[in-house]
């Protein structure tokens, strides 16, 4: 054996081992991301085991929330989370689609960039700022202008009356839903704008040639073509709204009562945890709050996973195949 043959042979194991180390580190980091999700779910289930064991499935359907006697139920918080998120979606979905339509078809090209960035900045505003704005600006506005009108005109109506009756105090489910809706608009609008812009031009041109108006192009060409992505974007917004904490905590009113009226204070899972966790003085109390977090985590996981599956289909058709 000569030295000339040995030296590249020596060089190779050194290079190989560094490569192996590099590969191992990146592989480990990828697994870490995967395990993080699992660890969070397991930690929440483990932390909530006392509450689940004590109350059983009744935890989900009980309206009780009495720290003094140690009786806890999740129903009020679950209802608040779902109701505020539903209001948020009712507001955010049409507004986001309107913004996306405006940015792709209506606005003059020169203002599209600036307006698009301004809408994106809405997503960058920290949620605690939304909360303060909701409490000090939006809630008084709702209390003096919107809610009296709602309870005067709709409060006595059959069927929907109870939803809009109650004192106009500004703090409650409706205001929380409105703040949440504003918060998720930029997320839905960003996806909607991208998929609207990616609709093949020949499809739209064919519709124009048939004499379709812009609204008809949206209704009959753009929306059917992008349906799965739009639903995915809305689910993405729903996932955000379900878990949003600070903004809701400010304007929801922290009341553990189940009320049909949207004008009354309520509670949500995230707001209950934020308000009460540091004050929870018994193991059962803490466990009940962590059990709530477990439920929230599972529900947002399912919603976001559904969103991701629906968005993946459009990624593929846009050529962004993973």
């Amino acid at each position: 054996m000569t030295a000339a043959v040995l030296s590249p042979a020596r060089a190779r194991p050194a290079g190989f081992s560094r490569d192996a180390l590099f590969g191992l580190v990146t592989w480990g980091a990828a697994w870490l991301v995967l395990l993080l999700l699992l660890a969070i779910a397991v930690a929440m289930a483990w932390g909530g085991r006392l509450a689940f064991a004590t109350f059983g499935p009744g935890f989900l359907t009980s309206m009780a929330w009495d720290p003094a006697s140690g009786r806890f139920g999740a129903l009020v918080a679950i209802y608040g989370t779902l109701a505020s998120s539903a209001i948020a979606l009712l507001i955010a979905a049409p507004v986001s689609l309107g913004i996306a339509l405006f940015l792709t078809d209506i606005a003059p090209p020169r203002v599209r960039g600036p307006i698009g960035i301004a809408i994106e900045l809405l997503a960058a505003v920290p949620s605690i700022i939304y909360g303060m704005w909701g409490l000090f600006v939006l809630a008084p506005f709702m209390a003096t202008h919107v809610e009296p009108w709602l309870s005067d005109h709709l409060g006595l109506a059959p069927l929907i009356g109870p939803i809009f009756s109650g004192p106009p105090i500004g703090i409650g489910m409706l205001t929380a839903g409105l703040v949440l809706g504003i918060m998720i608009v930029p997320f839905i609008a960003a996806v909607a704008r991208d998929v609207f812009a990616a609709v093949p031009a020949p499809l739209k041109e064919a519709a124009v040639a048939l004499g379709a108006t812009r609204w008809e192009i949206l209704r009959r060409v753009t929306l059917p073509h992008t349906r799965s992505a739009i639903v995915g974007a809305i689910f993405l917004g729903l996932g955000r709204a379900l878990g949003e904490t600070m903004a809701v905590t400010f304007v929801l009113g922290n009341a553990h009562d189940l009320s049909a009226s949207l004008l009354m204070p309520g509670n949500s899972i995230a707001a209950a945890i934020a308000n009460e966790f540091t004050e929870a003085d018994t193991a059962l109390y803490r466990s009940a709050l962590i059990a709530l977090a477990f439920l929230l985590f599972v529900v947002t996981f399912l919603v976001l996973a559904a969103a991701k599956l629906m968005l993946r289909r459009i990624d593929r058709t846009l050529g962004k195949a993973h």
Partner: protein
Amino acid sequence: MRWILFRRRLADIVALCFAGLATAFGLACLASILWTTISKGGAAIGPALFTEMTPPPGAEGGLANAFYGSAVMVLLALAIGTPIGLAAGVYLAEQGRHTRLAAAVRFVNDILLSAPSIVVGLFVYELVVRPSGHFSGFAGSLALAIILVPMVVRTSDEALRLVPDRMREAAFALGLPRWKVTARILMKAAMNGILTGVLLGLARIAGETAPLLFTALNNQFWSASLDRPLANVPVVIFQYAMSPYNQWHALAWAGALVLTAFVLALSLLVRLAARKGRHG
């Protein structure tokens, strides 16, 4: 016939007006939020805000300890989260681009990206605070890092995948080992995208409140120890805004103004730079 034409035109006009109004609504919300923070927070902006400690109710003071605590926690979170996120991003884009593990990680990562931040706070509470027996600035940093990681993973994965394959082939043809190709050549080419992700992540975690409530908690006094509760801007804003005291409200708004200005300026600059880079 004319009636149908009229109805179609009307529907079109209504839809276009709605789209315009929706955009105006979004812009008005942004303007109102900005105007509120500036008009309510501007009055309390002054040297004292950055030099004095958070006061007890009824006294004058500033937010110096909160700014310091936030800066330390955010920087430590960047130091923890960026390498992990970058390494995972490299795996997704380079090592295992088409593997089943990469597909699973991308799926899970996108979910973590939108996962409720309050649950992350509780997770770190269970992981660090409960075993150690006390709240700490380190726990707060860890919670922020967990929120940062998915953002870095996603942007570094996307930025690296945008690097043309010709570059990889040229580098491998020179006989460079894989780690050198990735670290010295591909990462350099993707640096703008990676940096964009890290800076946008910084903007996001600077304003995160929920994960700090049960990890860093708050501290009314100056503390430089990461092993003890650490004052931070978002939690101070939360506590002061929910309090009944006017002076605390004024300080909360001043903190909100500084926080919003920092986050929005950073996001705006990064977006403009990224856009310019794309066109240039």
